[in-house]
């Protein structure tokens, strides 16, 4: 029977550490004055759900159990070659857990039950064959077995101290004395009985929540838990091999409707550092309507990872991505619409010969036959005194009779007293002079 290879992560402080961010935000929060308690079991469950999604980037079979542990399993057999061996994968995984701020003990074994037990061993927690597992288990104390307390006491009374002594007994004898459950447990431990694990299912949309045990007043205090949420989100996106164009941060308030911001990208992304950068820019200008009780991260739409620019190599794509990062940052901090491009429009009226567009939009070819135009334009022509000195002109522009905003103007280049060259026009009918541009 092939048992595959299981990586088990024991997270002894999960509930406590999921809340640890609350301790870090001491400056921005106050004690639980609202009376809304936080349920540690719910916190633990939510944290484990996020971790399962995060772990999915390394394995397509992820499973967890909250009692006696909590424990998180990843089946590895299929992905071993992808990550350059178990040691490298383990190192990446452990580094990731440390970054997320979770204390952990990892073990690797050919059975999930065996791997779970090895997480409690002092050392040598990685074995890859059943024979290795068996000999490793034999040395360990009986107390590590996940058997009922009365069974352990009976074994102890019988003079057994090490797991090896128990495994040396015939299976039938164990089943008779301690029940079939104990016997099955030992077989699963050694990888000799089938040991199915319920596969965790990746949700179709991503929702993660971080509850504070107090209330947070200050947006900077949100950054620490946000960083963790975004790292887990990145893991989820890698696991699903997809990316997002936007995600929402929602702030729950006490007895008040939730508020929130949407963080948008101009190109699909799944990089936690990029997300955090953009979210930070958004939060910087945000005024919280009330103290925050909980922080939610939500993403409903996903795009295929194949359109990720990071997946392309080459300087053009790289440059484009750098520009996207810049545009996203500018828009996040300054506001949408504050970053624009310029384009030409086919209109003879100078004030209508151009328009704002979204950045990077290509534009019509310029009319090379047209007379020279000044580098800067006044958005509204300004009425001026007749200029004293004309340098060139006139250029007659007559246009727009079809849309009611018709113009009939004679354009000149004039020189001002300070040496500036002005682009001015005179309306022959009206006789008045206007300044429209500067030869900057």
């Amino acid at each position, binding site marked *: 029977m092939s048992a595959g290879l299981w990586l088990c992560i024991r997270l002894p402080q999960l509930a406590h550490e999921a809340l640890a961010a609350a301790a870090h935000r001491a400056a921005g929060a106050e004690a639980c004055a609202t009376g809304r308690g936080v349920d540690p079991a719910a916190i633990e469950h939510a944290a484990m759900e996020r971790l399962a999604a995060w772990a999915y980037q390394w394995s397509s079979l992820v499973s967890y159990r909250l009692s006696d542990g909590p424990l998180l399993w990843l089946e590895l057999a299929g992905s071993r070659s992808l990550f350059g061996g178990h040691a490298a994968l383990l190192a990446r995984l452990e580094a990731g857990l440390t970054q997320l701020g979770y204390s952990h003990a990892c073990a690797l074994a050919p059975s999930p039950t065996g791997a779970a037990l090895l997480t409690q061993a002092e050392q040598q927690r990685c074995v890859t064959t059943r024979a290795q597992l068996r000999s490793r288990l034999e040395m360990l104390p009986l107390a590590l077995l996940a058997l009922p307390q009365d069974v352990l006491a009976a074994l102890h009374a019988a003079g057994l101290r090490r797991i090896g002594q128990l495994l040396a007994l015939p299976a039938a004898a164990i089943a008779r004395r301690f029940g079939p459950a104990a016997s099955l447990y030992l077989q699963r431990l050694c990888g000799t009985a089938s040991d199915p694990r319920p596969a965790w299912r990746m949700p179709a949309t991503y929702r993660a929540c971080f509850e504070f045990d107090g209330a947070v007043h200050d947006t900077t205090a949100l950054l620490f838990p946000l960083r963790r949420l975004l790292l887990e989100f990145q893991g989820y996106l890698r696991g699903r091999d997809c990316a997002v164009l936007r995600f929402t941060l929602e702030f729950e308030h006490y007895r008040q409707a939730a508020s929130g911001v949407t963080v948008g990208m101009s190109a699909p992304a799944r990089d936690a550092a990029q997300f955090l950068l953009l979210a930070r820019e958004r939060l910087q200008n945000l005024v919280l309507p009330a103290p925050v009780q909980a922080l939610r991260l939500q993403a409903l739409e996903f795009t295929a990872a194949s359109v990720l620019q990071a997946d392309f190599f080459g300087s053009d794509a790289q*440059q*484009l991505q*750098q*520009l996207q990062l*810049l*545009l996203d*940052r*500018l828009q996040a*901090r*300054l506001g949408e619409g*504050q*970053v*624009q*491009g*310029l*384009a*030409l429009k086919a209109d003879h009226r*100078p004030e209508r*010969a*151009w328009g*704002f567009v979204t*950045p990077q*939009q*290509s*534009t019509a070819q*310029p*009319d*090379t036959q*047209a*007379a*020279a*135009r*000044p*580098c*800067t*334009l*006044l*958005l509204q022509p300004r009425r001026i005194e*007749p*200029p*004293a*000195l*004309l*340098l*060139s*002109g*006139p250029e007659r522009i007559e246009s727009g009779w079809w849309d009611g905003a018709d113009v009939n103007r004679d354009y*000149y*280049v*004039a020189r*001002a007293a*300070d*040496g*500036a*060259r002005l682009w001015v026009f*005179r309306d022959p009918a009206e006789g008045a002079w206007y300044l429209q*541009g*500067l*030869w*900057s």
Partner: protein
Amino acid sequence: MSIPLPIGSQRTQMLEQLARLCRTGDSSRAQRLAAPSGFPELDANLPGGGWPIGAIAELMSDATGIGELSLLVPVLTRLARAGRYIACIAPPYLPYAPALAQRGLPLERLLLIQTRSLQESLWATEQALRCPAVGAVLGWPAYIVDRNVRRLQLAAETGGSLGILYRPPEAARESSPAALRLRLHAAPDGLAVEIQKSRGGAAGITLRVAVASMAVASMVVAPTGVAPTVAA
């Protein structure tokens, strides 16, 4: 007794001296990165033969409309055609798209960034300078101190971009850490460029630059009924 440690002002002096040495060492490097300005008479007087890349240049213009933007259009066009972006941070007047396109600037490489405060402008300028995809950043800060310029200079170094700061003519009276400082005066046949400071180059030179700001009409026909003077 060992060598006494420099203290107080002595230490400051030593640090300044060190910094100067470092700067001199830096500028003595023959291969300073520069982008040709498109004006041979200007390039001949700038170290490296053009606008300094990875540095800040300050332009102090006597007036608006004397060719202070036209002076940059050739280098901006060159950078944009090389695939890099040009960012204008809160320009006081709208850069006129038809004029820029006429002179060959690919408009899709132009970014126009509006801000609500000086602080936002400086932040946006720094971000744009840092971005390797951006070739040049133009800023019009109303008020700026050495510390800001130094920060932007660092950002320009990081991004390998050309930072242009348009500053009021009064700024010429103060010193600045910018690599290049030019005063711009109106001239009948173009623009008079006075090199006030040039890191690694000569200063105190004034030269005429024929900025292609407008087509020269052969004849001016004054409108009837009014009689403005017509240039000879």
